[in-house]
């Protein structure tokens, strides 16, 4: 655990250094990002070997609090989640150095870097914590530090609103976790997580539901996702990348960790996760499709991808509950790999969105366009990320979705037709809609002509930002091509999650899981090779031929311009119209009037269904109730004394009667 602790120490030092030098933003950035990068490097040295190490040595220190202890251990499950945290945070820190530069003239960056390092450190501790109290403390610190990062630009009303939503949602979720962990520690007799005994079915069910709600809020399961589309756009982009890429995954980690403590799952847990996954996935991507704020779109996509992960977990749990080990392994493997993959492509996409924001000054897709020419690096990496998030071969997204599909197909064949079909149908629909969504995102932002002056004047970002995006894009391609290897590296984690006998697990892994994956990745490589060959052939074909350039063919329209292009809203309109029952888009239109119409406008917005129909009524109901109760304190002293007298009377009559 030495290097791991050293890594946390480096992060602490970097964060405190940044805070100390807040007045000098360059130095603060140096400390903050330097701490993160060094910490990541040192931490990876410990974490990567731990991926396959099935006998971790726990570290246990007594501390000065009356409950809990400082107890850490890096088993494969912890390491599997800690590694992406280190990697993505390092990339984001590098990116942040340049990205935050623009803010340094107006305010001190020290606190921001401090909270960044704190966020990273708390996530690391969270992943390794083996004690309820330590876990809860790390969890809360993670929430708080990310809250302060989200509200970095607090002069904006929308950011403040987002910050509040995030903080409150996170806290409500945490309340569930408090109950969960106290329940577990009551059963265990101590706060040590490794001491949790086998629970009675009632307790286990309660614990599962609490975990689903508590961790689900952080992970972004619908309908607990409301904070996500608010907070991610509000945060600085490298923070959005970290939050969306790894922070929400701590919810998945928590769920897996608790599941590993609860023993054999009943089938309805799997059904729960499957339902949550299908709803989150389909509705998440539908809402994403309806957005025209680029970062909000990406945020809803996080909900979708979390839904895919939940589908995988659901398939895994159901497979386990119905005694289909292969299905279980495939489902869990797909879910785990999708965790990793989502880190890579969602991190990449948020960083790309940040570059766009940085260069063009707006996130509104209706004002963007044509950026691929102006920002070739950002555009190309964003394209890779877009294809990966749609789950297209030969990129990484396909690898994980393939595993889940395969699990579901095996389930259909082996007698679990109902849930297999739910998973297949949901995944297919999600896949198709995601394709629509990302062709829209990439096409509208990067292709065509700029729709605004700022977009026309955009420029490529500097090397730190480009380097971090390129690294993540390379990760997407590599995982896509080396899927079996990555799966092998995560086999320790997988074994832990599946809870199978090692020998049976090994034979399943090598006999039935890795071979198709090898084929898939081989096919991906072949596809790439064919593309390259094809490109050469095409170049050869066009060699010496007349190749002209001209304006886009517009069927004879006389004055084409950028404003003639299809907009993001119109692109998505057929699908959003089809699903308007869920999306309930709002239109604001002022049509052209008179013989010589001057101007006309049309705008749509799609507010969150659950926010509008579920949370706002509840909150305003509570608010109204509170206002009613206000009457109690109306200023008349007579009634104040009456309260006392009545209390006394009631108590005397009730307790003595």
């Amino acid at each position, binding site marked *: 655990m030495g290097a791991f602790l050293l890594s946390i120490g480096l992060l602490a030092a970097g964060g405190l250094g940044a805070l100390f030098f807040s007045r000098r933003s360059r130095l603060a950035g140096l400390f903050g990002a330097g701490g993160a990068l060094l910490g990541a490097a040192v931490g990876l040295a410990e974490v990567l070997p731990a991926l396959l190490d099935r006998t971790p040595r726990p570290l246990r220190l007594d501390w000065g609090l009356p*409950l809990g202890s400082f107890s850490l251990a890096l088993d494969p499950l912890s390491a599997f989640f800690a590694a992406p945290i280190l990697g993505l945070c390092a990339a984001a820190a590098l990116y942040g150095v340049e990205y935050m530069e623009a803010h340094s003239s107006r305010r001190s960056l020290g606190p921001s870097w401090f909270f960044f390092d704190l966020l990273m450190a708390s996530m690391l501790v969270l992943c390794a914590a083996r004690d309820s109290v330590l876990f*809860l*403390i790390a969890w809360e610190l993670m929430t708080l530090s990310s809250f302060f990062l989200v509200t970095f630009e*607090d002069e904006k009303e929308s950011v403040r609103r987002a910050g*509040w939503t995030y903080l*409150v949602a996170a806290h*409500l979720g945490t*309340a569930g976790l408090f*109950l969960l962990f106290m329940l577990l520690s009551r059963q265990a007799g101590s706060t040590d997580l490794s001491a949790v005994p086998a629970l009675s079915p009632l307790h286990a069910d309660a614990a599962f539901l609490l975990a689903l709600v508590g961790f689900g809020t952080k992970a972004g399961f619908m309908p607990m996702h409301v904070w996500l589309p608010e907070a991610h756009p509000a945060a600085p982009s490298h923070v959005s990348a970290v939050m969306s890429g790894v922070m929400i995954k701590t919810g998945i980690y928590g769920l897996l960790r608790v599941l590993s403590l609860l023993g054999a799952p009943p089938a309805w847990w799997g059904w729960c996760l499957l339902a949550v996954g299908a709803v989150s996935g389909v509705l998440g991507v539908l809402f994403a499709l309806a957005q025209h704020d680029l970062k909000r779109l990406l945020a809803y996509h996080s909900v979708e991808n979390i839904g895919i992960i939940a589908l995988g977990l659901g398939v895994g749990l159901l497979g386990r509950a119905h005694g289909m080990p292969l299905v279980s392994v495939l489902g869990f493997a797909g879910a785990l790999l999708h965790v990793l993959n989502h880190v890579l492509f969602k991190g990449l996409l948020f960083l790309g969105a940040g570059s766009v924001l940085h260069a063009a000054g707006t996130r509104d897709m209706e004002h963007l366009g044509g950026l691929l020419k102006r920002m070739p690096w950002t555009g190309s990496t964003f394209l890779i990320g877009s294809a990966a998030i749609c789950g297209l071969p030969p990129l990484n997204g396909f690898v994980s979705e393939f595993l889940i599909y395969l699990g579901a197909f095996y389930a259909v064949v082996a007698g679990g037709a109902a849930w297999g079909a739910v998973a297949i149908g949901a995944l297919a629909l999600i896949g198709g809609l995601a394709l629509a969504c990302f062709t829209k995102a990439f096409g509208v932002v990067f292709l065509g002509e700029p729709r605004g002056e700022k977009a026309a004047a955009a420029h490529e970002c500097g090397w730190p930002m480009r380097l971090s995006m390129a690294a993540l894009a390379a990760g997407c391609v590599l995982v896509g091509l080396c899927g079996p290897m990555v799966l092998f590296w995560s086999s320790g984690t997988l074994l832990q999650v599946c809870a199978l006998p090692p020998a049976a697990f090994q034979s399943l892994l090598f006999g039935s899981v890795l071979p198709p994956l090898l084929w898939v990745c081989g096919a991906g490589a072949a596809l790439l090779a064919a593309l390259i060959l094809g490109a050469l052939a095409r170049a050869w074909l066009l060699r010496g031929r007349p190749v002209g350039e001209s304006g886009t063919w517009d069927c004879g329209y006389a004055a084409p311009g950028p404003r003639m292009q299809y907009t993001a809203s119109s692109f998505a309109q057929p699908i959003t119209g089809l699903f308007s029952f869920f999306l309930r888009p709002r239109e604001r239109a002022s049509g052209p009037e008179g013989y010589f119409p001057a101007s006309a406008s049309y705008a749509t917005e799609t507010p969150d269904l659950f926010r509008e129909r579920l949370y706002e009524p509840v909150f305003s109901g509570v608010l109204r109730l509170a206002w009613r109760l206000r009457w*109690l304190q109306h200023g008349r002293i007579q009634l104040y004394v009456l309260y006392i007298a009545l209390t006394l009377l009631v108590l005397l009559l009730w307790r003595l009667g």
Partner: protein
Amino acid sequence: MIWTLLGVPLASAAAAFAIRADGPRRGLLLAAALTHAALTAACWTIQPAPVFGGYLALDAAGRLFLSLLSALFLAASFYGAGYLRAAGRTKEEEDAAGFLFANAPEAVFTGCLLCFLGTMSLAVLSQHFGLLWVGIEATTLCSAPLIHFHRQRRSLEATWKYLLVCSVGIALALLGNFFLAVAARQHHDLLMTVPELVAQAGRLDKQWLKAAFLLFLVGYGTKMGLAPMHTWLPDAHSEAPSVVSALLSGALLNCAFLALLRVNAVLAAAGLADFSGELLVGFGLLSMAVAAAFIIGQGDFKRLLAYSSVEHMGILAFGAGLGAAAPAALLHAVNHSLTKGFLFLTAGNLLAASRTKSVGEIRGLLRALPRSGALWLVGFLAITGSPPFGTFVSELWILQGALARHRGVLAALYLAFLAAVFAAMASVVLKMSQGEPSDRLKEVPGDDADPWRFWPPALLAAAVLVLGLWVPPPLLDAVREAAAVLGMR
């Protein structure tokens, strides 16, 4: 030693009334506070002998609360010295409605402040129920002029309500004393001291004892601020000068809590722990609920803090009533006092800078008053029980106690109220802290830099932070011992 503990503040108070010059009087205030703190610190190593026939003695619970009181008073006295210096410069101030008002003479303020310390010490040190009651009663008396320091209509109204409501409550507590005496009536030899009654609890008449407890609960509960008897609290806390609010909330409420715990000890010894525990738990949850309702959308930040005190008194009662969580409740009393103390002191700084208590008129604290603004935000996190602050530990510990007693529903309610308060406070505090500074804060007087009024709250905040990371073993032992002394297990 006990006589000194009581004598120093009271003698200084007498002197303060007599001294004419402002400077030496402020020096006297600091000196008295320092002496009291030093004496209290000494009590941790030397166990002071009981005096006055055992009526006055320092047990573990008393020591804990006395230390808390002394520490808070020390911080408040430094802050108060700075406050008086600033307030002394202007003869007349303008209130929110634009009326001019003068402050009470500084001598009266200082004298009453020291008297307040003395009477609170008396309440903490008393082992005799009558004397305890006298102490509590006397605190009301000394604090009334403090609340009425600003000679204006609103503070007068607050004082009137404080006096009347608390007098009714305290009179009921007196009746409770009588009932207790009746319960012990069959045994003429019984003294009305805590150890004696605890020792002989089995011989007390159960029915009268129960009735006595009900009266004490309502009586001291009024003083402690349990709903629905809390009505005086928001008025008094919001209208008093912030130093006084800090002491009221951080020290006075604790004294009443301790008084209630002492009665509870007798009941527990008589085998009526379930009877009293249920009531405490019920009132605790009710207070939390009522406080949550009033914190939602609260428009006055000092009232916000006052309602938060009601909430925390509810938490204390809840924890104490659960029995298993008693040490946690005592630790929470420590955390709450320190946190609320520094929050009120910070609120005083905000008020001095912005001249308004209205939440709606304050925006952008973090930019306008970086230091006080940051303290305000830290205070919010601390008071709502976020790590890494001490309140997190104690609230979690109380929750653990609730679950240990198989009270899942109660635990869920407790969490729900905590979450509601968090959400409500977040919306108020974040609105105040973030964004661009509002008009009220555009041109801020240099008060944010006044070290006299920055460091006391900052040091208290540091203490709360430390308690969240490391609870010193002596404190932990003290808390456990105090819980044992108070018969809670």
